[in-house]
């Protein structure tokens, strides 16, 4: 389980996170949602140590990440996989080398064992046979899938996905969401997804945290987010005309 307690973060005097408390359960897809610029990506970066928190705790199975030195963090980070917004694949490496990279760095596997693991990961993201392609030869959706394969290569306990659907068409977005969901259940990871895509919220959100003005504004499930009276969440959820129509039809049904 992953837990954050009383996390505060500011940049040059401008506070962006205020006393955030949250728990992210194992085997569930935990969403952090909110409008752009509200602090959800900063919160995620604080959790993985890309930003240092000003105060507060980030607990990985009870271990406080904020108090660790570089070597201790390195140990914990081997339990973390992350899918970046732009996939962040290494340009100079092939798909296979990208997925194999954490294995070569942190395990003593033989080449054959690593190859087997890479094939296993690529099979899970439907990319079998694409081993020798370079990132520049892959579409956006393929790059995201390679990013997922690389993230799960070390069998992580914690998976972070930063805006996994940004820049993808709706069909590919559904595919990526499906992969994140199925891998979370199959590998029993604690998955944290940062998104503002309502399709993702409804498809994969087992538990949801809504960040507004740097604060945890609301917490619930995908069922409760539809019916909540919270004005800020309603503004977020029903921002599009399509969603507004759904709300009207839901209200009519209730009557």
């Amino acid at each position: 389980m992953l837990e954050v307690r009383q996390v505060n973060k500011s940049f040059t005097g401008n506070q962006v996170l205020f006393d955030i408390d949250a728990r992210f359960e194992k085997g569930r897809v935990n969403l952090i949602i909110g409008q752009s610029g509200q602090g959800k990506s900063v919160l995620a970066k604080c959790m993985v140590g890309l930003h240092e928190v000003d105060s507060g705790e980030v607990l990985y199975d009870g271990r406080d990440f904020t108090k660790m030195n570089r070597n201790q963090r390195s140990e914990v980070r081997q339990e973390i996989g992350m899918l970046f917004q732009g996939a962040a694949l290494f340009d100079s490496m092939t798909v296979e080398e990208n997925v194999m990279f954490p294995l070569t760095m942190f395990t003593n596997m033989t080449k054959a064992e690593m190859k087997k693991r890479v094939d296993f990961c690529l099979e899970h993201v439907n990319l079998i046979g694409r081993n020798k392609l370079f990132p520049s030869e892959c579409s956006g959706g393929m790059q995201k899938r390679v990013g997922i394969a690389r993230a799960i290569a070390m069998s992580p306990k914690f998976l972070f996905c930063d805006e996994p659907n940004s820049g993808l068409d709706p069909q590919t977005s559904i595919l990526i969401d499906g992969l994140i969901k199925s891998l979370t259940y199959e590998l029993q990871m604690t998955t944290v997804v940062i998104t503002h895509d309502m399709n993702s919220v409804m498809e994969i959100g087992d538990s949801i945290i809504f960040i507004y003005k740097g604060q945890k504004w609301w917490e619930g499930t995908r069922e409760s987010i539809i019916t909540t009276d919270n004005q800020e969440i309603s503004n977020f959820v029903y921002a599009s005309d399509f969603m507004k129509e759904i709300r009207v039809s839901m209200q009519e049904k209730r009557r």
Partner: protein
Amino acid sequence: MGNFGKYILMLTVILTRPKKWSIFLKRLFDEISGIGINSIPIVALMSTFIGGVIALQTASNMSNPLLPKYTVGYITQSSTILEFSPTIISLILAGKVGSNIASEIGTMRVTEQIDALEIMGVNSLNFLVLPKIAAAVLFFPILVIISMFLSITGGWLALVLSDLSTTDTYVLGIRYSFMPYHIVYALTKTIVFGFIIVSVASYYGYYVKGGSLEVGKSSTQAVVISSVFILIANFLLTQMMLL
């Protein structure tokens, strides 16, 4: 001063033991190929022609009949070994290699590839920069030796083809008052300059913020600042080693 402190802190993170020697060695050979062997053509071209020009300019200023004919070879040898090959070639490499490193690492920064390394638990500075520093420190002296040889050869070709000197006279000048310590001095300078070029360029690439525009700016800054550092280090090393 804040930047200098950050630069020193960066060096303390870079200069640690690599996580896996096999990966370090593979990356070292890749870097030797990328920043070393790939620089041979430009170094060869520059050295041959500038060696020729040094010899021709020296010969054109030797109108005094009291000066021995071999002086042209002697001056070509001295200026090549003491200054042209270690310093001017290093300044050229600061432009070629420094901008390349700053933009490569800068692009990795803005495309989150460095964040990806850090998330995996990799010491990204050590992983990315140490092989480049090692490659520069090991291979730049070889480039400078090649430069010395080609510059002196260029001088000989220019003089002989222009009929301004003979091979025997030129070789006599090259060997006249030759001090092997000057080679040690030149190679020591080159090692220091190589370290400066790679570490300064890596600093500007690693800490870049923004997008492609900032990567371009950091690349330019890397070349300018490393060139200034090279000139300062050249002055200090000459004071320490020759006087």
